[in-house]
């Protein structure tokens, strides 16, 4: 069966695409706006700017892949589509980080959860970060527009993995909701994390980026930004390195001159570009306060078949514990379920040998719940810091402190309680010292005494936020509410790195809405 492939069709028509791996010579390009990164921020921004008639160049470090390249297998998807082959870790290796590295960025590989910014988060930003223009009412039209553009609607056909989350919540009288997803004519396969093979997922790859290219934008894939070109506090463009097929610098440089640079390389990539470029930063804020929603995980074995890899990956969430102690109180956590595929499960599951194998053999009966810890709202949750290695590549130093560990323990307790309430026969917190527990009372006692420490408690994140905080005060924020960098003219940041805290919700829709708003404001500034 042929699936319509907008990328192949577009490339065969008039799209302008440069592939770094095919680049033979140094080159100089010019444009109005250079956008660095093609994910939720860069993709959406490219469409708005190109359709406004501006000359746009969109540069992406990863390759341009399309539905025909998506083979539903982790062994291809991880090296092709993810940062560091999906093995990216924080500096001490305690938290595994999943981020896209391909055209469309993380939107090409995420699990489609599309939630508006929680109201308590916006209120916290208004009260503590001087972001009064970003009220729920002011952002509502942008959320609505993004939802309409990407066909975002609640998904009501819950697979057993999600249905068990709902069942546990019902038994315990905990609140839960259906998740809106950005899909159209979805086949309900469950392989969103490996790139959508049917182009049902309304990611940037098949929506905003084709729209931008149709409007005349140019795209450069497999190019990384070495540094921004700055002259007398004025940004003039960027120096790019072409990357070979293995995404290593080939030694060929392309220079782009631009009136404006939009940084949209994500919360690790954007600070890394700023650090490499040695931009003015009088309060030393670049890369600080980077947040992850560090997530703890709990496995459960059921008598019935669950097949957690089949069907829409995320369609139910529970916010019962997110705001329980107020935005600035104890660490809240959101509960969701992940799609469970073999490499993801085998590498995340603690234990080895017979123990590991016996759990793997029960794969069809396994349900996994995750709890995303809401970081950055409390003074004891300062997040991490993006640093540069000797080779210029970024690494996130994210030490975990007592405040977060308390949240992690409570989250492991909640998940075990939930899974037993849903009928689990055994529950296994993903922790190096945990065992399979047979009852809620046994699990409760055991989890209370598990040591909460790095590389004992298993942690993962798919939400990297912050590092270029927006706000009203120059001592605590790098960009204003429009994303304008305070200390350099010609630089705007439009991605999740501008969040001054984490969100307490999956970030893609917040980034879309902010990108729509701030790209429109940028068009006005460039015309003014």
């Amino acid at each position: 069966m042929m699936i319509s492939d907008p990328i192949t069709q577009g490339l065969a028509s008039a799209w302008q695409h440069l592939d770094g791996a095919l680049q033979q010579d140094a080159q100089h390009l010019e444009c109005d706006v250079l956008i660095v990164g093609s994910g939720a921020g860069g993709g959406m921004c490219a469409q708005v700017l190109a359709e406004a008639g501006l000359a746009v160049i969109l540069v992406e470090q990863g390759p341009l892949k399309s539905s025909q390249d998506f083979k539903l297998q982790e062994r291809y998807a991880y090296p092709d589509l993810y940062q560091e082959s999906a093995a990216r870790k924080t500096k001490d290796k305690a938290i595994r980080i999943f981020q896209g590295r391909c055209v469309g960025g993380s939107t090409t590989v995420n699990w489609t959860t599309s939630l508006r910014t929680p109201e308590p988060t916006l209120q916290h930003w208004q009260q503590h970060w001087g972001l009064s223009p970003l009220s729920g009412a002011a952002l509502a039209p942008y959320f609505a527009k993004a939802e309409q553009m990407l066909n975002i609607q609640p998904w009501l056909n819950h697979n057993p993995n999600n249905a068990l989350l709902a069942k546990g919540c019902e038994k315990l009288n905990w609140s839960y909701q259906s998740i809106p997803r950005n899909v159209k004519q979805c086949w309900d396969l469950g392989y969103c994390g490996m790139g959508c093979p049917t182009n049902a997922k309304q990611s940037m790859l098949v929506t905003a980026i084709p729209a931008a290219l149709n409007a005349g934008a140019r795209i450069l894939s497999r190019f990384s930004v070495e540094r921004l070109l700055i002259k007398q506090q004025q940004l003039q463009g960027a120096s790019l390195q072409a990357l070979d097929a293995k995404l290593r610098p080939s030694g060929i440089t392309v220079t782009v001159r631009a009136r404006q640079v939009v940084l949209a390389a994500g919360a690790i990539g954007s600070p890394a570009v700023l650090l490499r470029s040695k931009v003015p930063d009088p309060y030393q804020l670049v890369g600080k306060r980077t947040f992850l929603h560090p997530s703890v995980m709990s496995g459960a074995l059921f008598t019935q078949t669950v097949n957690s890899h089949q069907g829409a990956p995320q369609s139910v969430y529970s916010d019962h514990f997110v705001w329980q102690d107020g935005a600035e109180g104890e660490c809240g956590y959101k509960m969701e379920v992940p799609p469970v595929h073999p490499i993801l499960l085998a590498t995340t599951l603690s234990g080895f040998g017979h123990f590991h194998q016996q759990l793997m053999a029960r794969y069809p009966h396994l349900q996994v719940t995750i709890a995303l810890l809401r970081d950055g709202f409390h003074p004891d949750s300062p997040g991490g810091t993006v640093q540069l290695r000797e080779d210029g590549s970024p690494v996130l130093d994210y030490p975990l402190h007592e405040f977060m560990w308390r949240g992690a323990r409570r989250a492991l307790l909640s998940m075990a309680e939930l899974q037993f309430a849903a009928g689990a026969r055994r529950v296994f917190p993903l922790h190096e010292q945990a065992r399979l527990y047979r009852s809620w009372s046994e699990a409760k006692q055991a989890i209370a005494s598990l040591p909460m420490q790095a590389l004992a408690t298993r942690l993962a994140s798919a939400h990297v936020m912050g590092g270029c905080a927006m706000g009203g005060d120059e001592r605590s924020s790098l960009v204003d509410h429009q994303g304008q960098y305070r200390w350099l003219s010609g630089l705007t940041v439009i991605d999740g790195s501008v969040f001054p805290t984490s969100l307490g919700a999956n970030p893609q829709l917040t980034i879309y809405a902010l990108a729509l708003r701030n790209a429109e404001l940028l068009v006005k500034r460039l015309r003014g």
Partner: protein
Amino acid sequence: MADFPVTFEPAEQLKLKASEQQIFWWFIPAFLDGVIEPQDSQAKRALLQRIDQAFQSLSSATQAELRQLLELLASRAGWLLLSAGLTPLSELSLQQRLLLLEQWQQHYLQLLRQAYQGLHEIIYAAWYGDPTTWPAISYQLPVAAKVLFDDQ
């Protein structure tokens, strides 16, 4: 350089050096105890090749860190420090290797937990990335997906 002699026949075409391959060679049967027989050289060789491929797909920085770890394990001084014993890895029984992994898994030193998790991740990613291992865990691609790829 590695201090311990290489006690198995390394594959020359791999990017991993003989001394680095040897670390995996002796740990594979422990991580996959119950799945790969310790004497099954063919299965171990096939997995080593996939580990090598997985290694090549890692970022330069991660490759360098993993190499550093493997070098440490392959050196006499490093092994003495990390194993709390003098017997080389190749002379440990399977039971002793399993015991060592359990000690690393729960060790108070973060370095040893990192080492354990680093080996854990690459060995299991290489093993379960291979579709021939899927029937044992009853995992299969969706029937609907066959339609997608049949025409190619």
